[in-house]
């Protein structure tokens, strides 16, 4: 019966045998979306777009890249100078990686603010954290591929994190390297995995979307849609709203690619890798800086590594740390203050991660690190019990109608 809704006979013929058009139609028209979503709900689509841009430009770059310690750096320079439009493709790949993280960080903070991780969306949230972890691994390995100084020493430092594991640490690092230092075998496997991971991410994204469509999007008020009066169809209302976000995203990406292509990179990575000399001040890519700051804040090797990973893993258990039944920060006045403190704390960690590990920066890093964990492990559980929340509206429509009446 479903086939009859298409006027095109070819579409009807295919859909009767392979109901892809019905599925698309279902997602476009029948999937109810809360009608009060704001622009922060664009960032899921934008992250998906960033992933597509990364995969497409990455496949094209791989056609011109050589994963060998003697040729990697010069093959990247060849891409920049000789390959047709190579500079454009590489700059898009570099900057879209940063934009991917910007978009995902906004997406995560959106979830934190509006309580999108709460029941029944815990798995949706956890799959998101898995995607975030996979992104970090992919980005790290991608940064190694140009085989500049930052590539080499970044790879050395990050892989050495695993040497902090008692007893088997050294063996694990040797295993990761495929030798006794970061060398050609390391570069080869990083290239292989860097090519693989985006497709793993795409797979988890599919699960993320399946989980999302089970209960639908959360919304700025954080209460469930009560019926058709609270929702609108995804198409054309949110497709067109997403298009506005996509246009802005592409515009800003183009500005970065054409006017500030290296602003989010490090100049030292244009120096070929030298295993005999570490640069004076090595920093990871900006999107790792908050975690890097946590790593350096701890004066113990194993402790620093554990705390850095804990900073991400605490997000997995977030749905059970924040037990307040009210989702949206709009109705949680105290939570809202702490949310912004956490936001400032994360920005501060990012800033401190980029500074030398000495003097006042170390002290500040420690304060910020303690606050980060305090927020999740102490403040959120306490708020769930002691915070007096504001009364929730009866439905998504109610506040809008009330305002309309008030104006009239």
């Amino acid at each position: 019966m479903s086939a009859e809704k298409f006027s095109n006979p070819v579409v009807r013929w295919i859909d009767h045998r392979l109901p892809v058009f019905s599925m698309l139609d279902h997602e476009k028209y029948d999937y109810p979306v809360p009608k009060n979503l704001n622009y922060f709900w664009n960032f899921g689509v934008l992250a998906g777009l960033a992933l597509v841009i990364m995969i497409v430009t990455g496949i094209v770059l791989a056609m011109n890249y050589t994963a060998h310690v003697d040729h990697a750096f010069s093959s990247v320079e060849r891409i920049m100078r000789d390959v047709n439009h190579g500079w454009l493709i590489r700059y898009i790949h570099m900057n879209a990686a940063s934009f991917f993280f910007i978009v995902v960080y906004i997406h995560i903070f959106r979830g934190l603010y509006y309580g999108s991780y709460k029941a029944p969306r815990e798995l949706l949230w956890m799959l998101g954290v898995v995607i975030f972890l996979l992104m970090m691994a992919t980005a790290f390995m991608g940064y190694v591929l140009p085989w500049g100084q930052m590539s080499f020493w970044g790879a050395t430092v990050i892989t050495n994190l695993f040497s902090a594991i008692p007893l088997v640490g050294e063996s694990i690092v040797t295993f990761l390297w495929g030798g006794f230092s970061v060398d050609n075998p390391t570069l080869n496997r990083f290239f292989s995995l860097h090519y693989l991971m985006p497709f793993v991410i795409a797979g988890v994204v599919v699960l993320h979307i399946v989980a999302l469509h089970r209960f639908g999007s959360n919304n700025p008020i954080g209460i469930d849609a009560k019926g058709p009066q609270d929702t609108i169809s995804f198409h054309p209302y949110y497709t067109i709203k997403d298009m506005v976000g996509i246009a802005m995203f592409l515009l800003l990406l183009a500005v970065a690619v054409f006017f500030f292509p290296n602003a989010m990179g490090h100049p030292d990575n244009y120096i070929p890798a030298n295993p005999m000399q570490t640069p004076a001040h090595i920093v990871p890519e900006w999107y790792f800086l908050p975690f890097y700051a946590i790593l350096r804040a701890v004066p113990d090797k194993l402790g620093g590594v554990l705390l850095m990973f804990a900073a991400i893993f605490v997000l997995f258990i977030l749905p059970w740390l924040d037990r307040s039944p009210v989702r949206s920060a709009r109705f949680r006045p105290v939570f809202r203050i702490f949310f912004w403190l956490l936001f400032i704390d994360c920005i501060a960690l990012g800033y401190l991660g980029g500074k030398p590990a000495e003097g006042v920066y170390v002290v500040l890093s420690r304060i910020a690190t303690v606050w980060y964990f305090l927020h999740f492990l102490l403040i959120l559980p306490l708020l769930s019990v002691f915070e007096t929340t504001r009364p929730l509206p009866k439905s998504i429509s109610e506040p809008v109608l009330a305002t309309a009446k008030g104006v009239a």
Partner: protein
Amino acid sequence: MANTNSKPAKSATDPREVGRRDFIVVATYAMGAVGAAAVVWPLIDQMNPAADTLALASTEVDVSKIAEGQAITVTWRGKPVFIRHRTADEITRANAIDSSELRDPQEDEARVQKPELLVLVGVCTHLGCVPLGQKTGEVKGEYDGWFCPCHGSHYDTSGRIRKGPAPTNLEVPPYTFLSDAVIRIG
């Protein structure tokens, strides 16, 4: 239900309104298509030869050291180029036949700049194998030029196809004499 709601209702009272909206929709799609094409082009064009590849598109060879009856093979654009210092006998035999009888009719004079020096791209015009006949002792085929072992094409002393599946003569690359001793191929 949502299906009917979501599609913009067409105004039955004012047909001009429909036309304007259609124009905007079509113009938007057209603009999107132009943008998509502009984005796709660099991604495809990167597969064309890069600047450094194009820069290697010519090769200079000293031909003065090639003795009469001797042949050398040089690399030009990643392909073998045969340079043969032909004997008087080979030149005579290349000119002996009526070229109109050949599969790919061409006079020997049209294929050389100096009769004794024959320059050929050493790639069989059938499916791209490298024919034998450069080294002494190799099979030279029934016409004493080159023989392609892959599918049995016979080339004569001018590199013209005489027998076998190849459709055309061995290609003569563009080349110039920089001096009496040196040629530049490409």
